[in-house]
């Protein structure tokens, strides 16, 4: 009876509840591993520049002189390379997504870390080499 192959599935559909996830009413499904968006903590950053060099799409920009850490959310592909490579744990990955925006803007943070006067060798350079 080749014409009734779908019947089983159809009957199960009628008996079962709706398959739809009630998204706006119920929060989106995430898992602990979900790569949502990158969060930056300016207080622990030492501007070693590793995240910016690791980023495959150049979404992160660091200006050491101006003490600025910038991320272009519209370029970020949430690969998590910056998170894995950050030696100070300043960059973390959050599970929730970045919401849609109307304006394309770059997020800017000011790094609060003050470079110690001594030792004479720049710690920033050491970190880059590590």
């Amino acid at each position: 009876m080749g014409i009734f192959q779908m019947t089983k599935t159809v009957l199960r559909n009628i008996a079962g509840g709706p398959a739809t996830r009630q998204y706006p009413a119920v929060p989106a499904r995430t898992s602990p591993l979900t790569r949502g968006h990158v969060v930056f903590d300016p207080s622990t950053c030492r501007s070693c520049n590793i995240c910016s060099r690791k980023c495959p799409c150049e979404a992160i920009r660091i200006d050491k002189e101006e003490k600025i850490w910038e991320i272009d959310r519209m370029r970020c592909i949430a690969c998590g390379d910056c998170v894995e490579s950050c030696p100070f744990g300043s960059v973390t990955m959050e599970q929730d997504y970045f919401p849609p925006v109307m304006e394309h803007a770059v997020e800017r943070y000011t790094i609060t870390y003050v470079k110690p006067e001594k030792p004479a060798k720049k710690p920033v350079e050491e970190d880059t080499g590590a």
Partner: protein
Amino acid sequence: MSERIIVPFGPQHPVLPEPIHIDLVLEDETVVEAIPSIGYIHRGLEQLVQKREYTEYVYVAERICGICSFIHALCYSQGIEHIMEVEVPDRARYLRTIWSECSRLHSHLLWLGLFADSMGFENLFMRSWQLRESVLDVFEDTTGGRIIQGTCKIGGVRRDIEQEKLDEMHRTLDPFEEKCRDLGDVFLNDETVKYRLQGLGVISKDEAYALGAAGPTARASGVAMDHRETGYAAYGDLGFKPVVETAGDCYARCAVRVKEVYASIDLIRKAIEGMPDGAIDVKVKGTPNGEFFSRAEQPRGEVVHYLKANGTKHLARARIRTPTLANIPPLVKMLPGAQLADVPVVVLSIDPCISCTER
């Protein structure tokens, strides 16, 4: 004597999620000749290899195609690993196999849905896609991404799957397989589906082989060619046998994919059972120097990444031959003789992935 007319098909066509353009030469309602033209989504990814470090290019390789992303990354990584003579740990090989098969499952279910849509079987389309979401949930739980996984890297994988998760996956495989079999039953045995597909777009075994068809398109014509047989990743340990049909029509291509869904579930089950302990990656040092044609089996067929490294951190050349490009000549041979109304079905039966093709 009937007149010949040319009907442009695509690039923006409701049945095609992606832009491909085909000029169909029709005699009455029958296709006489079909000339495809592509290039609507050509990006030039092959050249990007000179601007990205070889380790970063994995991310680009994943984004060649959003459907078979993991296998692109796998193929690229395997090529670099071969050039650099890196031995990947066993656990990484097994994890790669699990994710490869998951992406095959998700791709085939997606294709079955789209194919049902092209036949006008809307209900089946929705069912397939609903089933596919459970594969995507597994991806999200194990890799953190739904369709772009980002877990493959040179020298292994970036994430491990914990034992509890593996057990859970193993438990859910049985009910999942049951649902897949119900769905596959409709594709394989339903009278309406058979009536629509049998004898449509026939391509013989010799022709398919000579035209260089790849993947399910070749296997549906009786060419037993599946790159997983060479035993890359962990396929060598799992006892893999390719799925082959002989009719060479749209129904056979559909049947190959349905049966590959079952085969994939079986492979995942075996891989979970045989999962070895140990490290998931090795540290890769230095820069590659050499060249290699890395090949892997995608849901659509065999993919070739030709990688040429020159000892710097940027590769000299990456040339990516994707299965859809190889399947375009068979498509051109398949279309003549089909009715205009069957063209979407025939085009979809090779599982065209245009963003792969055009890179």
